[in-house]
């Protein structure tokens, strides 16, 4: 990474590097969390969510990365083009662009981990769609999904509803009656709970489903879903789709459900438990490649 800072935490047995990587046109900002003074046993690339979920998921991904690095896993976090600290024009960001960014992060992680270290991608919320699409380019890569969004269209409808609820509570204008699509058509972007959603990202994401993005080949898949959340799509159609591809699927009911679109919890709960499960799963994926 360029222009980076290194932090060594001897007590936790980890080192962290933060800096820019990727092309000069739109450098991406990323964080590598690695075990200190020992080779990584696996490499995990975290594909974050977008819009309001990004802020809510952020700290739990930081805590998760530190926990996993302490357990011997190299974790690469990154921010998509036009988001976070990364550069790039948000109006030109598309779903394929997010996937491209994830692939750049994978290449960086591979350059930092031992060649034999197994590779996995973890997608959180919409990041699950990105991670699923990115695994197509890395045969045998394991896939972990954390509270995954299974349909782009449903996700945007949920986003719009949350924004309207907040606008009502704050006695603000609730937006156009024809909703998100009308606003996007009219001016090319929409305000979704204080985040800009641009037409290019919306149009390139709205029809995508997790089923459609999943690679054809078999691979180990772990789905992490809060114990309190009931989601038939995970237990039913998605599991069936994964099984049809010959994937070994584990569903872990762990952690607590976040109030997506609203306020984040001050310190994420249950992340150590998720890290423990991921660490065990990665070790298993390494022993038994799909």
């Amino acid at each position: 990474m360029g222009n980076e800072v290194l932090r060594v935490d001897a007590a936790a047995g980890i080192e962290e590097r933060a800096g820019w990587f990727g092309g000069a046109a739109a450098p991406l900002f990323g964080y590598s969390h690695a075990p200190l003074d020992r080779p990584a046993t696996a490499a995990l690339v975290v594909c974050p969510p977008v819009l309001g979920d990004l802020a809510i998921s952020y700290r739990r991904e930081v805590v998760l990365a530190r926990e996993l690095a302490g357990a011997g896993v190299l974790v690469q976090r990154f921010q998509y083009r036009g988001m976070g600290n990364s550069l790039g024009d948000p109006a030109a960001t598309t779903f394929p662009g997010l996937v491209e960014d994830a692939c750049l992060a994978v290449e960086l992680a591979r350059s930092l981990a031992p060649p034999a270290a197994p590779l996995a991608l973890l997608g959180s919320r919409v990041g699950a769609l990105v991670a699923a699409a990115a695994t197509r380019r890395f045969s045998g890569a394991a896939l972990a999904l954390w509270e995954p969004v299974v349909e782009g269209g449903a996700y945007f409808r949920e986003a719009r509803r949350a924004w309207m609820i907040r606008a009502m509570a704050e006695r603000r204008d609730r937006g156009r009656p024809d909703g998100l699509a009308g606003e996007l058509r009219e001016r090319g972007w929409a305000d979704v709970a204080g985040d800009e959603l641009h037409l290019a990202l919306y149009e390139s994401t709205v029809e995508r489903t997790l089923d459609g993005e999943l690679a054809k080949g078999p691979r180990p898949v772990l789905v992490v879903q809060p114990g309190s959340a009931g989601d038939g799509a995970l237990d039913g159609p998605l599991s069936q789709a994964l099984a049809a591809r010959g994937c070994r699927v584990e569903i872990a009911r762990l952690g607590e459900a976040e109030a997506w679109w609203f306020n984040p919890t001050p310190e994420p709960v249950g992340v150590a438990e998720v890290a423990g499960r991921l660490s065990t799963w990665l070790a298993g994926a390494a022993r038994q490649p799909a």
Partner: protein
Amino acid sequence: MTGPRETPVSVPCGGDHVFGILTEPAGEPNGAVAVLLWGGGQMPSYGRNQVCARLCRRLGEAGYHAVRADYRGFGDSTGAPPRLRMDDVALEPLVEGTLAVLGWLARHGLSRVVPVGSCLGARVALECMPSIPDLAGLVLLAAPAGDYEYRRLRPVGGPTSGFVAQLTEVVERRLPTLLLYGEQDVFYQDFARARAARLGELLAASSDLLTVEVIAGGVHADPTVANQRAVIDRTCDWLAARGVS
């Protein structure tokens, strides 16, 4: 270097590290560093919809150095998040982290400071003020005039005496200061109430230093995209108009 003119930094603070990003000026430096101190909403330091990253980059284009950092326990900083309250004791962990960043900046030749504080960050800026010898001015966005516990006590209320005392010090030090509110901000109600009393006298007597602006809608918490842009524009325009550097 593959990145922009921005440098990630990790500043030791007690047993923790404060993570931040320093933006360098695009052209001739004007000598001042803007220190962004955002609220307690657990947002990473780039801010919702990149509002802080965008503000830092705009300030960089205007000749400022600018730094955005995560409080301890938030974003990429280490540590556990403190309990968030608006009184000086509870703000201490946030103030300590901010002073650690200011110390790092001073060691790198950046000691002339313009704090840009939003909500709880505005109070952190005011708490830090006695420890900053070379202040160029302040920008206070949706600054709470009263003391409350974050998201736990009634939304409006609490003593304003601490806030008035701090603004009195601002005036005594002859510091140009922008106070920007949204008319729908819950903290604006407190500000308006305080303004009807002792704060109003101070503002009237110091209008050459203290600029109060109120825009439609909200500035506090997660404002609309339009108001995020307004905050960036108003901050940059006011700094330029007042020649704060």
